[in-house]
């Protein structure tokens, strides 16, 4: 199709503002989706994502839309919608010329609305503001309109109102896409250049690569290569999603679709890379994306040591469809063999663990999440993300940690407790902005480490779910962090070690030893639990010795039952991890992970 009849766009919205619902309406409107057969919210296709209401993998769907006698090809590129995933949002946006910025009329602008709007502005996209859920009784369209005008400088007449649920305003929205989103640029006659903006994995065909065509065309049978690696492949299949996969043989400049080229290793088709003709390497690649680097880490261990192989397979498989996931084998004295895994954020971590457990039938133990620290000493610099590798305290070393800019939008009434928490998390105030008389935007700079542990849940519970947040990485800054070791019965248990700011070490240590003392059962001797920095004990508690455990009566009619009771006790013991003479239940490791600030 001619470029002038093509529009490439995404819908961006805060979670639950109606993105998926609106996408479904588009599919129906364009006749690609039979409303009678429609599965709900087709683009959200992973069960887990549906449950959590978020999308992990972006996909693209081609819609055919006729207006004023002309047929348009609208490519709707799905974006994921959560705070951890702005990287993934940005790579989807690279494939677009415009976005629909969707705002829930009952909620107004929230943190991710802002984040997405700024990302879109950075990418210089045409932004169409859409106010959704106008059918709802508690919709306050007027207020949202003025927020959009005030905060982003939209003009009144630009604002579109929809009810994605009832289908109102959908036609107007599609028309706006055609009219306000610019056509894709690119040289249709030039040599092939296409941007890889996503990939997924098909167990029969290998990597399915999503591309946004820029120059030239891609055909089945063509020899292509990836700009960065230079490795070439023969294209087997070229197609689009409607939303079903549909083979069409070729894609032209400006179009969006996928191709398959028998690639078995997803790392050979990196997102952000440029696809070009094998024999005609262009002078310049397309502007790619930043490489995604994990910033949150934790150890993952199978509950049952014999599941190690199964966990490895599961990670290998997951990695095929989740390039952001990284992992390497590690072992721990308490948990034996497992993997140190890196994630884009805490949510990414939680979803990954849940998928591993559910889709691969594993029981996992995850250690306390940590972030990357940069350490410099004697002119050398290296990175540490595992408490186990953290160096001993010494005067001549410097430690830097990653700071992020966090934006929180909250109803004004929750503002002051949220500010308290942000301060407590070593946050520095950047700005405060009233979006309207009831809602305020707080921008702070805080260390990422302070956010990975339990911040989001705190925020949500403090604001009864009304506050929202988003963050972007800033830079590494000098910091005073220490490694705290936990000693159980005088033995250091690496799995419980954590890194935290010096000022907070005592408080967190106290919380940790207390939590552990609640979970570790009483033994026949007292079990001291201590927290230490270097050799200095900074918190301690005792699990008191069990002093009485004896069955009074045991006679002939009751022997089997009594024996079974003891056998059950024995079994419970077996499930625990022996550390020296002490049995530590697996929950202890989980509780340490969930330890609140």
């Amino acid at each position, binding site marked *: 199709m001619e470029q002038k009849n093509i529009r490439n766009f995404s819908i961006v919205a805060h979670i639950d503002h109606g993105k998926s619902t609106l996408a479904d309406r588009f599919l129906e409107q364009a006749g690609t989706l039979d409303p009678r057969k429609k599965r709900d919210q087709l683009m959200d296709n992973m069960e887990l994502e549906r449950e959590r209401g978020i999308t992990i993998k972006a996909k693209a769907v081609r819609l055919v839309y006729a207006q004023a006698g002309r047929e348009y090809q609208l490519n709707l590129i799905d974006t994921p919608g959560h705070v951890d995933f702005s990287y993934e949002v940005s790579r989807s946006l690279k494939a677009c010329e415009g976005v629909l910025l969707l705002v829930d009329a009952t909620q107004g602008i929230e943190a991710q609305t802002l984040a997405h709007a700024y990302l879109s502005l950075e990418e210089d996209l045409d932004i169409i503001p859409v106010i959704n859920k106008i059918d709802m009784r508690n919709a306050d369209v007027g207020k949202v309109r003025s927020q959009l005008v005030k905060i982003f400088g939209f003009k009144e007449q630009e604002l579109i109102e929809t009810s994605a649920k009832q289908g109102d305003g959908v036609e107007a929205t599609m028309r706006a896409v055609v009219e306000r989103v610019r056509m894709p640029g690119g040289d249709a006659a030039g040599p092939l250049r296409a941007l890889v903006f996503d990939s997924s994995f098909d167990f029969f065909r290998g990597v399915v690569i999503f591309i946004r065509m820029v120059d030239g065309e891609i055909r089945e049978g063509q020899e292509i290569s990836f700009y960065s690696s230079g490795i070439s492949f023969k294209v087997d299949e070229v197609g689009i999603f409607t939303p079903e996969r549909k083979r069409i043989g070729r894609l032209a400049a400006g179009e969006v679709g996928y191709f398959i080229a028998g690639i078995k290793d997803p790392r050979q088709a990196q997102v952000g890379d440029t696809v070009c003709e094998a024999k005609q390497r262009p002078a310049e690649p397309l502007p790619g994306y930043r490489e995604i680097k994990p910033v949150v880490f934790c150890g993952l261990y199978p509950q049952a040591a014999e599941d190690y192989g199964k966990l490895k397979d599961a990670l290998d498989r997951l990695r095929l469809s989740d390039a952001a996931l990284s992992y390497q084998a590690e072992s721990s004295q308490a948990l034996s063999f497992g993997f140190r895994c890196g994630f884009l954020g805490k949510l990414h971590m939680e979803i990954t663990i849940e998928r591993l457990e559910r889709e691969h039938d594993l029981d996992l133990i995850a250690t306390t999440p940590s972030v990357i620290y940069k350490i410099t000493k004697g002119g050398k610099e290296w990175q540490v993300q595992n408490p186990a590798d953290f160096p001993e305290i010494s005067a001549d070393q410097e430690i830097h940690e990653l700071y992020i800019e966090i934006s929180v939008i909250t109803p004004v009434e929750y503002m002051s407790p949220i500010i308290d928490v942000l301060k407590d998390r070593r946050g520095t105030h950047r700005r405060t902005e009233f979006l309207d008389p009831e809602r305020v935007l707080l921008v702070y700079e805080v260390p990422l480490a302070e956010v990975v542990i339990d911040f989001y849940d705190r925020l949500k519970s403090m604001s009864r779910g009304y506050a929202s947040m988003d963050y972007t990485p800033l830079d590494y800054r000098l910091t005073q962090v220490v490694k705290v070791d936990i000693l159980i019965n005088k033995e250091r248990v690496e799995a419980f070690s954590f890194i935290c700011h010096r000022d907070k070490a005592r408080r967190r240590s106290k919380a940790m030893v207390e939590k552990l003392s609640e979970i570790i059962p009483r033994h*026949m*001797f007292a079990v001291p639990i201590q927290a230490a920095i270097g050799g200095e004990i900074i918190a301690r508690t005792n699990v008191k010795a*069990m*002093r*009485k*455990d*004896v*069955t*009074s*009566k*045991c*006679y*002939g*009619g*009751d*022997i*089997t039952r*009594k*024996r079974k*009771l*003891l*056998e059950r*006790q*024995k079994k419970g*013991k077996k499930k625990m991890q022996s550390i020296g*003479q002490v049995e530590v239940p697996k929950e202890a490791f989980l509780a340490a992970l969930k330890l609140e600030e």
Partner: protein
Amino acid sequence: MKKTYGTRNTGHRIRGQNMNRPTNYELRTTSYEQSAQALYVHIPFCRSKCGYCHFYSVASSVERQMSKVALYFEQLKVELAEYKGKAGSFSTIYFGGGTPSLAASGLFFSFLEFVDREFGIGLAACESRVRCPVSRVSEAEISIEANPEGISLEYLKHLRAAGVNRISIGCQSFIDGELKTLGRRHNAAAGLGAVKLARRAGFGNINVDLMGGIPGTCVEDLLGNCEQAIALGVEHISIYLLDRKEDAAFLAGKGWEEEEELRGLEMVRAVLVKAGYCNYELSNYARPGFACRHNLVYWRGGDYIGLGPTACSLLSGKRYKNQASLRGYLDEPGKREEEFLDSETRRREKIMLGLRLQEGLSLKELSKVADGGGRDFRRRVARLEKLGLLAIEGHRLMLTAAGQPLADRVMVELF
């Protein structure tokens, strides 16, 4: 330290060659594994159910149900007859409950006669001053559990005459308030009276059951009860602490604190040992020679036969459990579940039961079911020894004073 527990005697002299039977009980342990010599008879009737009780019994006004109880005794004989050939003579019989003392004495008389005829318990006419032409004595230990409530001298004498020579009286406490908390139908005076009556009826081997850890009481209350039992001069005292694990529902979180329980156990032991009782099992105290031979069979791992609903039997490595329904039992006394005890299970039971005894667990016996006591056994024992919870004397392994209150833990460690 070597202790022997046996029947000192029952106050009767026995005629004939039986006089020469050994009274040292310990030496005969192994014979119990060849054929059951212990018989348990469950009498599942009570006036009303006590809140803390875990035993199977039905509350019924016995006056109205006399015929039913008589029928039940007939059924017991039917069930016992099934075991013909699986047991020789019995050297212990134990009527437990429920409340056996609710049943008419004549029923015990005829039942014991039946047992003697079919299996042998050495019943013989009594040569004592009890001038009753039908009076019987037996060299077997024949125990009955009795509730203080509603027993008369007359009744007790009849039991004696039927051959019963040991009585276990469920006093529980000699403090009215405690008895009320427990929901017992008798008061303290009735308990004291019952013990005295039993003595007057000629029982020379009397046990009193006492209960500790009752909500709202303290260690001193329990000690007072012990003193009272000592003063009564009973031969045997069983002391049961209400338990956080087993009696959680009854205690509803109101029982003794752990420290109290520990102190209670310790002080009770001190008081009773000082008074000449031997703590021969975790919860049982006896004057020398008066250990309950019947219960020793269980703890030493001997075979036994149990009759009546919920009763268990252990015969050649298999345990049988009768159904837990009186009605079902009356229809079909032979219906029971069978459990095969493999060597690992037998090993665990030996540990669980043997360690309850002051004499401890015979390591030689244990080695018969598991080489060297099982995997890692030595190492585990050594660790517990180091913690001061176990001691080895000769070929016997026993709990130390510190180990006793942690018995279950220690057993689990060795399981």
